[in-house]
């Protein structure tokens, strides 16, 4: 009897425990009064036990079918007000069983050696998504089961409801922070950093002086200039854009300069042997060779810019903006709004990064790091 089979049996038993153990510390209708739920529990038990005996590939499907069913069962039970907030071992053991089965399923999926790239790509995407989905499940169950007050820690379902209820407010905040603050600052900051880097490359003295300064400033807590920018540019989005400009300028400068210097000396000698001038060499050699470095900076800057704009809003802003909303609503203990804004920020951040990464793939497809 391998440990995996043992684990599956334990999961099946844990699920079955719901029929025997008390569901709640309050009086609540027993499972016999809930025929659908009871059938689901028994089915899940069978699936968990059965997964121990079938072939590995089938076992994955069976395991996840059981997990879906098992999670659904516990969530359905927790909708009952006599159980929510008072859940006891009859709920928790099945939750642990679900967790164990999910872990086994993911472990098996991770061990699969796929035949082609498409299959392995799908699996590599599926595993973290399944993992993330399960974390959300645990969050939901914990909040509902323990009866955590929603002012303290809302459940994901509550956050989702609040998210879709406040789409207009979220859009306005997004527009203020991201479109007005981040994008304008990002374009100006990265553009300026790029131009100064080209100058620093052309005139070596400038480069040797600016590079150490750029490295030095990159390490400083630049978000601290936000109050100064507010004093110079007012409370509205220009001050946030100014913060983003300063934050994105230095990484862009340092990385672009490193990239322009990255061209090999053989390739540079080749250009010299053609009698090419600086402008031609810049256009045909230095810039294409610098693309990987430039995109590295653009990706780093995409996150830094967003963080900078949000933190700058913590210092004071008109009645709009992601940072503003988070700061104010956190003070008012309206945490579901805050979480909805955080979800918005996470989605926007990933989308921004994703777009830059896509542009990188298209322009630097030739780089060795893509060819392995």
């Amino acid at each position: 009897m391998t440990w995996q089979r043992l684990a599956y049996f334990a999961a099946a038993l844990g699920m079955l425990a719901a029929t025997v153990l008390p569901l709640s510390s309050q009086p609540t209708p027993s499972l016999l009064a809930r025929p659908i739920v009871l059938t689901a529990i028994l089915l899940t038990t069978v699936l968990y036990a059965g997964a121990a005996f079938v072939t590995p590939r089938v076992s994955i499907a069976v395991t996840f079918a059981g997990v879906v069913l098992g999670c659904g069962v516990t969530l359905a039970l927790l909708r009952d007000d006599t159980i929510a907030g008072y859940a006891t071992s009859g709920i928790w053991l099945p939750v642990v069983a679900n967790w164990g089965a999910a872990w086994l399923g993911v472990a098996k999926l991770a061990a699969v050696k796929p035949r082609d790239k498409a299959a392995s790509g799908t699996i590599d995407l599926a595993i973290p998504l399944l993992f993330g989905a399960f974390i959300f499940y645990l969050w939901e169950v914990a909040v509902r089961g323990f009866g955590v007050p929603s002012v303290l820690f809302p459940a994901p379902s509550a956050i989702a409801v609040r998210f879709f209820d406040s789409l207009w407010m979220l859009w306005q905040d997004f527009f203020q922070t991201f479109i007005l603050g981040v994008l304008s600052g990002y374009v100006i900051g990265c553009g300026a950093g790029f131009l100064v880097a080209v100058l620093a490359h052309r005139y070596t003295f400038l480069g040797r002086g600016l590079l150490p300064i750029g490295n030095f400033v990159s390490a400083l807590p630049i978000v601290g200039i936000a109050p100064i920018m507010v004093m110079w540019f007012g409370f509205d989005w220009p001050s946030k854009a100014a913060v983003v400009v300063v934050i994105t300028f230095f990484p862009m400068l340092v990385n672009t300069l490193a990239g322009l210097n990255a061209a090999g000396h053989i390739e540079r000698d080749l250009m010299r042997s053609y009698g090419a001038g600086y402008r031609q060499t810049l256009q045909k050699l230095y810039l294409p060779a610098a693309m990987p470095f430039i995109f590295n900076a653009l990706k780093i800057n995409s996150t830094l810019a967003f963080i900078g704009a949000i933190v700058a809003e913590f210092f004071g802003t008109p009645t709009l903006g992601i940072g503003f909303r988070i700061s104010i609503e956190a003070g008012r203990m309206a945490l579901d709004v805050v979480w909805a804004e955080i979800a918005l920020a996470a989605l926007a951040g990933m989308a921004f990064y994703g777009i830059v990464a896509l542009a990188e793939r298209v322009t630097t497809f030739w780089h060795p790091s893509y060819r392995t």
Partner: protein
Amino acid sequence: MTRSTFSAARPAGIRWHPTFVRFVPVVVIVLVLIAVWYVAAVLMNLNLVRGAFERDDTPYTTGQLIAGTMRAERPLLPAPHQIVQTFAEDVFGWPVTSPRSLVYHGWVTLSATFVGFLLGATFGIVLAVLIVHVRTLQKSLLPWIICSQMVPILAVAPIVIVVLGAIGLRGLLPKAIISAYLCFFPVVIGVVKGLTSPDPIQGDLMRTWSATPAQIFWKLRWPSAVPFLFASLKVSITISLIGAIVAELPTGAQAGIGARLLAGSYYGQMIQIWAALVAASVLAVGLIGVVSLIERWVAQLMGARS
């Protein structure tokens, strides 16, 4: 048909010492930047000072005007010497425990940074080791950690402060938790990269000796990971500092560099803000310096070329 004769490859005379060559451009650029700052200070404070003179109905010369821009109490852009002066006053002029002392505020922020950094770095290293050895974790958790690099996770700072405050935890601990949370991610990614950096042929060699996973870890993976570890420690300690500063903002804390920045912005004390920024920069440079020193010491122990 012309013939040309090439003379000596270098101009005779000054032998440019390499260190000299390295420092001159930096010093020159810094001096130029300071000069530009002074000019900018004059230009930006001009209207302010002129307005003050006109309100008092006193006559003024251009010289007095310019001198005034260098001494303004609430300047738009303080002159460098004003910042240095205020910084020195706030650091040396007050007893270290006084809430007017930058040392006091710096210490408050620094202690949160430090505790957070230790927590985050330790947890990060442990998780990285687990990720490298447990395939399930590597495929399920690591993608999320990499994703966190794209997301402005600093945005959760207010939530953490508020929730922990509601259950009675205030002061250093919430700030340290935020710092720990922020600096944990780069450490995980860096250490994972380092632990997986050894050449496959090294792994093969270990297998021919029938080495256990623990032996492979201590003799091959961990030493290879040390440079990556220090690189990410330097990044994460600066992030930890920023986290501690930002954590002081949402609830309007009374102590710490962030609090100082906030107070300065509320009361329009421009020079105070700049002095606090200088203090934060000193802290950042100091922290990176300490990590670099430790790094160099460890590298010596591991036989690096000096």
